[in-house]
């Protein structure tokens, strides 16, 4: 697999291929599997993603602790805001939906992780459905997203415990932005700028879940992560370029993660988890959880 966006973009542009296709070719070479095989595995992942979106939007899910659930349905059915009826609101609802399913022990695709699993399906299926694109295009977008994620894994990290939330929902936003930019007709180089634009917007983001549970703020951070991806896609497709190349933005994300205090890396020792209300909710909910279990 590629270790840099620059290399992948260069290979794609020289041969007139998409990033998705050069990613599929690289995966096929690495794993000794035919491309059709990889596409069908990605297509199964897409089916699970769509299933989770659908399940979450119905809104009758609660997490183990009861801290989160039911908010995706509010965006679908609740009062209109300024973005009602736009793909933006739909994408937010889908991101909440998948993450509510995750918190309720439903089936999701960890892409790149379970805690950041809402961003990619929300952005890709939301924008593909709005543009009425066939599923084959979304499957290829998943390949491009996998390429971007693999590069982040190599150069930085995809773990909140190592790099904070910038390495989970932040990486997911970068993956979704690059993949969707290409899916909607952007060039490989525009996709690269979308990755950089999304990732720069999440630099420094800490991982601070209440009680250490993948619930709060994780569910909402998937929605805001998706929003950042949408902003990056809109800018990249408008021809906006970001002066620092994606690879360097990813590198600095890794560097910031390594320098991040351990309180901000999934330990519930800092950030929102350590606020007075955060501590109180975690204490109450964990006690409640024990009672419920017996």
């Amino acid at each position, binding site marked *: 697999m590629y270790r840099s966006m620059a290399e992948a973009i260069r290979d794609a542009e020289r041969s007139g291929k998409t990033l998705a296709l050069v990613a599929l070719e690289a995966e096929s070479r690495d794993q000794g599997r035919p491309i059709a095989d990889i596409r069908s595995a990605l297509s199964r992942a897409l089916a699970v993603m769509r299933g989770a979106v659908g399940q979450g939007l119905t809104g009758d899910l609660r997490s183990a602790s009861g801290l989160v659930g039911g908010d995706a349905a509010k965006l679908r059915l609740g009062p209109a805001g300024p973005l009602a009826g736009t793909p933006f609101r739909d994408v937010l609802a889908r991101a909440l939906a998948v993450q509510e399913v995750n918190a309720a022990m439903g089936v999701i695709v*960890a892409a790149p992780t379970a*805690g950041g*699993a809402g961003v990619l399906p929300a952005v890709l299926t939301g924008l593909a459905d709005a543009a009425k694109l066939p599923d084959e295009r979304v499957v290829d977008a998943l390949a491009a997203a996998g390429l971007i994620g693999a590069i982040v894994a190599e150069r930085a990290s995809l773990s909140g415990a190592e790099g904070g939330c910038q390495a989970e929902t932040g990486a997911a936003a970068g993956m979704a932005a690059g993949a969707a930019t290409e899916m909607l007709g952007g060039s490989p180089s525009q996709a690269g700028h979308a990755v950089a634009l999304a990732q720069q917007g999440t630099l420094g983001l800490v991982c601070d879940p209440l009680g250490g549970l*993948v*619930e709060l703020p994780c569910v909402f951070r998937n929605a805001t992560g998706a929003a950042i991806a949408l902003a990056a896609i809109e800018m990249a497709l408008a021809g906006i370029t970001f002066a620092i190349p994606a690879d360097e933005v990813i590198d600095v994300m890794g560097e910031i993660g390594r320098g991040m205090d351990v309180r901000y890396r999934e330990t*519930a020792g800092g950030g929102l988890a350590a606020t007075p209300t955060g501590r109180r909710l975690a204490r109450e909910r964990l006690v409640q959880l024990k009672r419920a279990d017996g």
Partner: protein
Amino acid sequence: MVSLLDIIGPVMVGPSSSHTAGACRIGLLARGLVGGTPQTALIELHGSFARTGEGHGTDKAIVGGLLGFRPDDERLRISLDIMEREGLPYRFEKTTLDEDAHPNTVRLTLERGTDRVSVVGSSLGAGRVKLTQIDGYPVEVSGALHAIVLVAEDRRGSVARIAGILAEDGVNIATLRLTRKERGGDAFMVIECDDPPGDAACAHIRELEWVRWVRCLDRVSG
């Protein structure tokens, strides 16, 4: 080497790849060591598994693994109910293992028929796991490959004999680790293979008179 399908995956029951999917995989591997669903289990949770395990369904995921459910099996959510319905006397305790134990670690003591095993496993993140101890022997079993775990008398030529049986079966050995507690004592062998060893090869190894105990474990990820 990172694979696309590691990034876009795995398909799993939430909420946490380390606390849920990884915990399930440790349960699955431990189940393999007693050759099926254990009749009794003591599940001792350490570190973050003890602290935030309940909220992440770690208890349900480990029990689900012991029952043979994989990380994407929706029955993980109701595994504790299934355990009760089946009348399985599994017990949970919180414990503190060694200081250098990974924060997401569990010790499982399982019984099935005449088999009894104690195993320590850690969930390393992103669903990756490692068994670090079996019956007091230090081991490294990732579950990413098929594995043969065996205890044998410490004697010359044992490795060559077993490698020979596997070669005849067309199985390629990826890693092999041999440990023993003392010279002339029992040797503990973990052989990870690219291909699943056939039943015949496993039976052949089991029949060797100097092999005391052997289990063939299916891979649980990848």
